């Protein structure tokens, strides 16, 4: 059972995103970069599968050279090897370019399962996994909160507005996992030490045969404006000294809710 897990390095989501007022671009300086917490669940899901059935977990990412740190984190959790697609021409890529680059980088290799988070915590369009599935002509099992693999098939509980659907697809398939699927393990010191010696292959666009077909050369869209949204005005904040509940009830009464 060979599993490929797609991961992304993002600015620490606990530090609020800031915009340079002049360039209207994201301020990246001074912000910690981390493995997307959503992707930790993907790595965990992959590790649990190979621990049960044998096989290996390969982690793949696209990003600047320092994105290798996110891959190392996944390797420290226990993944076997990493692939980093990195190329200056890929800066500010669309989701479809990411999908093309990953599809290109894994061409000729066989995976039983490709696992992604449902969406990145920073971009959050959630388009890449489905685009990757389409490019590879594979079924997509999306929004999985439970994943089982047996008899050449993957079965998930797929979250819905009303509950969940049980959905099945033959392998190979692409799966997106939600944060609820598992508790991601914390890398142990031993894992962190071992990760330093694990292979991380770096490839550029030329090596994967995508020169001119991904990244800047193939932008499908352009951001032309970014403005701060109108913010809600904060109202009154009071400290509870025994009267808190009464204040809320009075407020609800004034709103004619009770």
């Amino acid at each position: 059972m060979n599993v490929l897990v797609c991961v992304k390095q993002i600015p620490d989501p606990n530090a609020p995103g800031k915009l340079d007022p002049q360039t209207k671009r994201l301020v990246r300086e001074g912000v910690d970069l981390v493995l997307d917490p959503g992707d930790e669940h993907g790595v965990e899901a992959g590790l649990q599968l190979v621990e049960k059935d044998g096989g290996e977990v390969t982690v793949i990412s696209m990003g600047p050279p320092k994105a290798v740190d996110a891959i190392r984190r996944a390797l420290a959790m226990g993944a076997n090897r990493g692939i980093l697609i990195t190329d200056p021409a890929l800066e500010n890529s669309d989701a479809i370019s990411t999908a093309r680059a990953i599809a290109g980088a894994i061409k000729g290799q066989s995976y039983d399962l490709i696992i992604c988070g449902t969406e990145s915590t920073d971009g959050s369009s959630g388009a890449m996994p489905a685009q990757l599935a389409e490019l590879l002509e594979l079924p997509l099992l999306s929004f999985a909160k439970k994943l089982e693999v047996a008899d050449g098939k993957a079965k998930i509980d797929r979250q819905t507005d009303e509950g969940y659907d049980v959905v099945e697809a033959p392998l190979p398939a692409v799966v997106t996992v939600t944060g609820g699927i598992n508790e991601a393990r914390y890398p142990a010191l031993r894992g962190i030490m071992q990760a330093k010696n694990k292979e991380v292959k770096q490839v550029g666009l030329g090596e994967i045969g995508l020169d001119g077909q991904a990244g800047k050369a193939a932008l499908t869209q352009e951001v032309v404006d970014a403005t701060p949204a109108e913010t809600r005005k904060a109202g009154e904040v009071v400290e509870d000294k025994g009267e808190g509940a009464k204040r809320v009830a009075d407020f609800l009464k004034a709103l004619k809710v009770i």
Partner: protein
Amino acid sequence: MAGAWVFAETVDGVPKPVVLELLTKARSLGDAAAVALGPGASKSTATLGEYGAKKVYVHEDAAFRDVLATPAVELLERLVEKDRPDLLIFGMTYDGRDVASRLSARLGTALIANATDVSAKDGGWAIISPMFGGSLLVTTVPKTKGPTIVLIRPKAVAAAPAGSAGAPEVQRLTDSVDTSKPVARVLRRETEKASGPKLEDAAIIVSGGRGLGAPENFKMLDELAAELGAAVGASRAVVDAGWKPYSFQIGQTGKTVKPTVYIALGISGAMQHTVGMKGARTIIAINKDPEAPIFKLADLGVVGDVHKIVPQLIQEVRSRKGK
């Protein structure tokens, strides 16, 4: 006029609420059409017409209900090639996102997700999406030929009937649906019942976060909600921890709600959550951390212990109702 198509998700022939929102937007941008797929889809045509669809494409094959995304993508690709719409609008729903994303890869056209508005601009489109939990509004323009694909968040547009609309032209499709390729098939559907009103429709929502400390403490929220006739919601932290099912989740990856009153209990107000509830008319927050970002949104904030205040609040509400 530009052709603006809406992917009309239906359940047993009834359009999902977001579909009527999308049609309201689509008809302001051009000739609106709807594509309704799956068993019972033809029952939805009158409603779709009422909200502005001049034409409705209908295909009732069970595969559209039982197989994820791929049959819809195959059919949409054929329809797009034949009738060449300028804009394809999907709801930012579980199925909408899968179908739109696959279709964009197939057509090689721009996909813009998380949108709250679309307008015509210089012969093309300008799409507005919130970023950073809605603190920033980004305008994106597509740069590809062929139809632009937009995923609009539920509740971003207020649905309104078109008024003067007549019955739409209905085109019944009977193309064979190819599912010979490997597909993701739905084996069964499970519903997680919640008591009280539906979260999406509720006028009052009582919502809990990690500050509640333990899953059993949601009982007091249920009690408060019952007193107020409210629905119960939850933050992602709580859902990820397994305290509540996903159907309760409000936020970026959950539901978007716009109640009259939103009561946030033990919710810190991470952007992931606030993007789904900041449209509430009035927000009340109780949290022990005076620095919690939720207080920047709240009309009334109480810094204190939810475990003490909520039971008191239930009593206060009861005594006021008794009067």
